[in-house]
């Protein structure tokens, strides 16, 4: 998959309470969750981002709760990809499971600025910063995880596995 989008920069330790505050977790409707994405960090964020934009963040993005509502809210709000120095473990799993591409890169986090345009080849792991005229090659994800992504997320993997077991 090829993704092209504008960069929104975030600091270290962006937690899931900031991504989607718990006061909105009395629903699991993705559209409603998306309306409040990052609200306590920047109340205008949802209005400002365009479909396909990319978050570039510091360390430990998505720390805190296991709420899958966090990557769902980001994805539905328009975020197409997240690149961070590191991700909290559960957020990483959740993003992969719902099919939101995420990559770890210290370099990209350090070298890109808000407003830069990035081009991401999610299969090859090649990321280009158009404004800075730089290209980065990231380590491919483990084969098992690539398989989940190529099936379209963990849900499709489970469907296939259930079918196999029922045969």
């Amino acid at each position, binding site marked *: 998959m090829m993704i092209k989008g504008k960069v929104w920069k975030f600091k270290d330790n962006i937690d899931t309470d900031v991504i989607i505050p718990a006061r909105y*977790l*009395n629903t699991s409707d993705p559209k409603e969750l998306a309306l409040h994405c990052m609200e306590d960090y920047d109340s205008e964020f949802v209005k400002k981002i365009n479909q396909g934009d990319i978050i570039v963040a510091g360390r*430990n993005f998505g720390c805190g709760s296991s709420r*899958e509502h966090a990557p769902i809210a980001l994805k539905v709000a328009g975020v197409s990809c997240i690149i961070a120095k590191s991700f*909290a473990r*559960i957020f990483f799993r959740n993003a992969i499971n719902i099919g939101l591409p995420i990559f770890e890169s210290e370099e990209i986090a350090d070298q890109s600025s808000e407003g830069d345009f990035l081009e991401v080849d999610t299969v090859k792991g090649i990321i280009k910063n158009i404004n800075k005229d730089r290209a980065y090659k990231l380590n491919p994800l483990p084969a098992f995880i690539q398989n989940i992504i190529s099936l379209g997320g963990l849900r499709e*993997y*489970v*469907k296939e596995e259930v079918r196999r077991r029922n045969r």
Partner: protein
Amino acid sequence: MGKTIVEKILSAHTDTNNLRIGDIIKARVDFAFANDITAPIAIKYFKESGAKEVFNKKRVGLIPDHFAPNKDIKSAEQCKLLREFAQEYEIENYFEIGKMGIEHALLPEKGLVLPGDVVVGADSHTDTSGALGAFAIGVGSTDLAAIMALGEAWLKVSPTIKFIYSGKLNKWVSGKDLILYTISKIGVDGANYKVMEFSGEVIKRLSMDNRFTMCNMAIEAGAKTGIIEPDETTLEYLKGRAKRPFQIYKSDTDAHYEKIIEIDVSKIEPQVAFPHLPENAKPIGEAKGIKIDQSIIGSCTNGRIEDLRIAAEILKGQQVHSEVRLIIIPATQDVYLQALREGLIDIFIFSGAAVSTPTCGPCLGGYMGILAKGERAISTTNRNFVGRMGHPESEVYLASPAVAAASAILGRIASPEEVKQG
């Protein structure tokens, strides 16, 4: 070379031979659960998967604890989804209000999660059950749906950091202070993707309730889980509770650890974690005098009977400060009943505290104690992120039940000694 407790548990739950750090394995799950926030999405995906039943009706738990008793209509709808799903799929461990407790306190108490288990919960504080010597990890809803359907989870074999605690604990220093101190030393991502194994003479002498508190907050250092080797204290706790046979695993003396961190506890004072990260823990001396509007004693971190006993010891014969709301939330019905029998609830109510039925409520800013703009709380809960307990401009300071109780009396963050010396 020897193996760690986690490597042994995972080896016993997978068909992969000779596990190595970094391997991705499929692990059989002994117990899986979700709450009223995470279950609705998991239920939806489970139904979509085509699975006709859950992998084991006795090994799935559904616990409406976050916004239950239902805080509003939307929450009521979410809880209803759990109830109906439990009925339709004959899930035995659905806990209705009146039997419900905060999941991570309830499941060990009911003997549903046991040493040697692989426990997977759709809640980040699932690591709490690591205190029993189980491998207990938090996941999201899609993962949980997969486990309910297949009875297994994909996992990466993580390295372990061993923490060895030695020395004599100071008065009023609890498991909460040890874990806050530890997180302050390694940072909120200091154990990201790794297991924290808590050990040493101090841990051996620590009660189960304090061990649960420590493992509960391993996630606040980014850890995959926290774990403590089962010992006499664990076995004593399990007597009359364990619902099925279990297996004890211990780390070999020559097991490989990514790192070993030794901590001398004799230097540790009661800790207070300042906003807005759990790693901002400082000794109580540096927090004294900060005015508070609210004090919360409860949650999956500190809502167990020992926590309430310590709070009662400090509150006995005292009055909550006129400008403070003290809210005490026993974590389970059994804890509540025990506190009632021991006269603790009397002490709380005479002191001017509000006592609630079990719920996660205020910990995550759900209800039952939301903060207004500019308000400040001291809390025995586990997170102090921006807006965690209410308004984005409110503040949460994390501490032990002793500090939260003393602070409620004095109207400012206070050491228990200030109250007990009268």
